[in-house]
């Protein structure tokens, strides 16, 4: 069965989704979803292990050899992304049970879990496929379910946020379709590897650069690259806690992966950087994201929104790494992909705990939580330190690689801006911490620590933040190898 792992990664959750809808009982559908996530995680671990020890896997669906059939192709890059998506799902689902029971009406819960698995399935599907149109199909699965999930938030602004996301997401997806169409018309193929072979002959052509532009803009909309991020803050802020935790740590990451895949594998670094000069656009935008979005985060009165802005800034770090186009830079981007998933997962889950007990995530609502919810706030503090990039947390490792990559190319202003971003993070994280620890608790003192079922998964991620910050050999090693694969150097 092990040769079928790539497809089982996607198909089993895909079968679990209708099952979760059919069982109709909240607890049972939760169980189905949880098992699906666990399965996906197990398969992802096996795949990563296989890829690292044996090498990339190509799976021909329907036994039609590419480019005639659809190929699943797993290498170091997407094996890592699969691990992130499924890992976060496996942690979020145990967390979801209590949180969802509290935030979602009972009769909707089975469908909620169905949508959650569908979202995960879509993201896994995007990551694992080697066919550009298949990317689009699974992108839509994940997007449609994400729109619905975000709209489940209790605040009515969740609805408008979801609508805005739907509009911008659909524009992005349509742009991607246009890009795919233009590539197809010039090459006659949809398979990534095949495209990569046929595109270099087309470099002098005017159609391919346009295809490239549409794909990049479309993907940038999906990954919320500044200034195309407008959908993100509200969507993260008003979605249910579980949804925010899951989507914030996975959806944009997979979009970044798409960017990597198209820029490096399909078009090739030589075309993207030497002909299209994509770095001249991406680097300034990434830096602008880091600075302006961190500044915006400082002024947010709602902590989930604050973290959302911070996410846009952090996406800037990933894109910055990619735009450096060196092994270290791309590795830093990929590493931050993983690390930021851990960081934001932990932070949003901590906020979910607060939501569960306090009913609000406004900054004022944090007052005194350092005393009333010590474990939740400790999780937030550690997550926040990791976000800032304090040594021995994952955030530090990301910044280390990123700054080094920038220095390697003599781009010291970039290095300085990256660090300035960290300092801005200090301000917005500390704003929350101060309120939590220095203000008197409000209310009648009925606020208690969050239940264990919420705390445990949160702390799993918090500890992962430390673990992979202290021993980053695995993650950094994979990231470096992934970057080498993408850039086609060494191995």
């Amino acid at each position: 069965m092990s040769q079928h792992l790539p497809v089982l990664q996607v198909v089993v959750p895909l079968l679990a989704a209708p099952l979760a809808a059919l069982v109709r009982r909240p607890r049972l559908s939760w169980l189905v979803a949880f098992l699906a996530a666990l399965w996906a995680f197990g398969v992802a671990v096996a795949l990563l292990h296989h890829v690292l020890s044996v090498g990339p896997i190509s799976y021909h669906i329907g036994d039609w050899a590419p480019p005639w059939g659809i190929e699943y192709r797993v290498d170091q890059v997407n094996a890592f992304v699969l691990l992130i998506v499924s890992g976060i799902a496996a942690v979020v689902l145990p967390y979801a049970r209590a949180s969802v029971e509290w935030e979602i009406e009972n009769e909707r819960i089975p469908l909620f879990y169905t949508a959650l698995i569908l979202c995960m399935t879509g993201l896994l599907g995007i990551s694992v496929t080697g066919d550009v149109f298949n990317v689009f199909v699974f992108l839509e699965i994940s997007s449609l379910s994400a729109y619905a999930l975000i709209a489940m938030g209790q605040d009515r602004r969740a609805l408008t946020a979801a609508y805005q996301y739907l509009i911008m997401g659909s524009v992005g997806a349509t742009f991607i379709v246009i890009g795919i169409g233009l590539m197809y018309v010039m090459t006659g193929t949809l398979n990534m590897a095949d495209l990569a072979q046929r595109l270099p002959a087309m470099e002098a052509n005017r159609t391919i650069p346009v295809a490239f532009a549409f794909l990049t803009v479309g993907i940038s909309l999906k990954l919320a690259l500044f200034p195309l991020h407008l959908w993100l803050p509200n969507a993260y802020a008003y979605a249910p806690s579980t949804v925010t935790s899951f989507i914030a740590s996975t959806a944009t990451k997979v979009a970044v992966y798409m960017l990597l895949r198209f820029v490096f594998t399909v078009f090739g670094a030589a075309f993207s950087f030497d002909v299209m000069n994509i770095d001249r656009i991406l680097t300034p935008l990434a830096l602008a994201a880091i600075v302006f979005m961190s500044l915006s985060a400082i002024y947010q009165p709602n902590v989930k929104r604050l973290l959302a802005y911070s996410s846009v800034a952090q996406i800037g770090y990933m894109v910055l790494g990619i735009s450096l186009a060196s092994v270290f830079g791309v590795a830093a981007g990929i590493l931050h992909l993983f690390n930021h998933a851990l960081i934001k997962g932990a932070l949003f889950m901590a906020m979910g705990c607060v939501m569960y007990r306090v009913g609000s995530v406004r900054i004022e609502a944090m007052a005194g939580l350092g005393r009333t919810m010590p474990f939740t706030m400790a999780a937030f503090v550690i997550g926040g330190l990791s976000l800032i990039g304090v040594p021995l947390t994952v955030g530090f490792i990301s910044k280390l690689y990123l700054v080094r990559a920038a220095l390697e190319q003599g781009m010291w202003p970039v290095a300085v801006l990256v660090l300035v971003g960290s300092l801005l993070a200090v301000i917005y994280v500390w704003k929350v911490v101060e309120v939590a620890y220095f203000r008197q608790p409000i209310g009648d003192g009925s606020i208690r620590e969050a239940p264990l079922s919420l705390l445990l998964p949160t702390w799993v991620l918090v500890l992962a933040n430390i673990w992979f910050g202290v021993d980053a050999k695995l993650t950094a090693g994979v990231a470096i190898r992934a970057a080498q694969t993408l850039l086609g150097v060494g191995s």
Partner: protein
Amino acid sequence: MSVVVDIALLAFLAVTAFAVMKQRNLFAVAMLSGIYSLLCAALYTMLDAVDVAFTEAAVGAGISTVLVLGTLALVGHKAKKPARPRLLPLFVVLITGGVMVYGTLDMPPFGNADNPAHQHVAPRYIEKSEEETDVPNIVTSVLASYRGYDTMGETNVIFTALVGVLLLIATGEQSRRIWSADERNGGVFEESSEPVEDGHG
């Protein structure tokens, strides 16, 4: 002959699309978009894409129109006049369109059998599909077998749409919790000034 029909259809499409943009009665918009789909279906037939034409007619003109009308029955049918001409959207659209036109300049000419798209993967389907799958309709064989996995994804997409729709509007009653989430705490952390129906405080 076919070129004339082709151009006429495209002209009709342009008129319809423009009318959709200008029209403020949403019922009319719904009907126009249905017409747009039907015209598209006709165009697809002209372009030898009969399966697509069939589907567009059934989905675009049929299901989509029914959905829009069903929505309008719930939300009313008058659209406000746009406050003022918006320059930014126009700018974005012109740029996008300009870039696309630029991109077409090197595109292989319309309908030419030598185009690269017709030379690489497609020929094998045309030559071998009957033999390999015993299905004369190549679109069906590609859809269900060669690229069957895409179609599975597609099936999943509509299933996802259903899940989304049901999550949003499954119950007949209106959602209970549509106001600010902070309301439950007695408005201590009031975030939105939007009061509950009877107002408070």
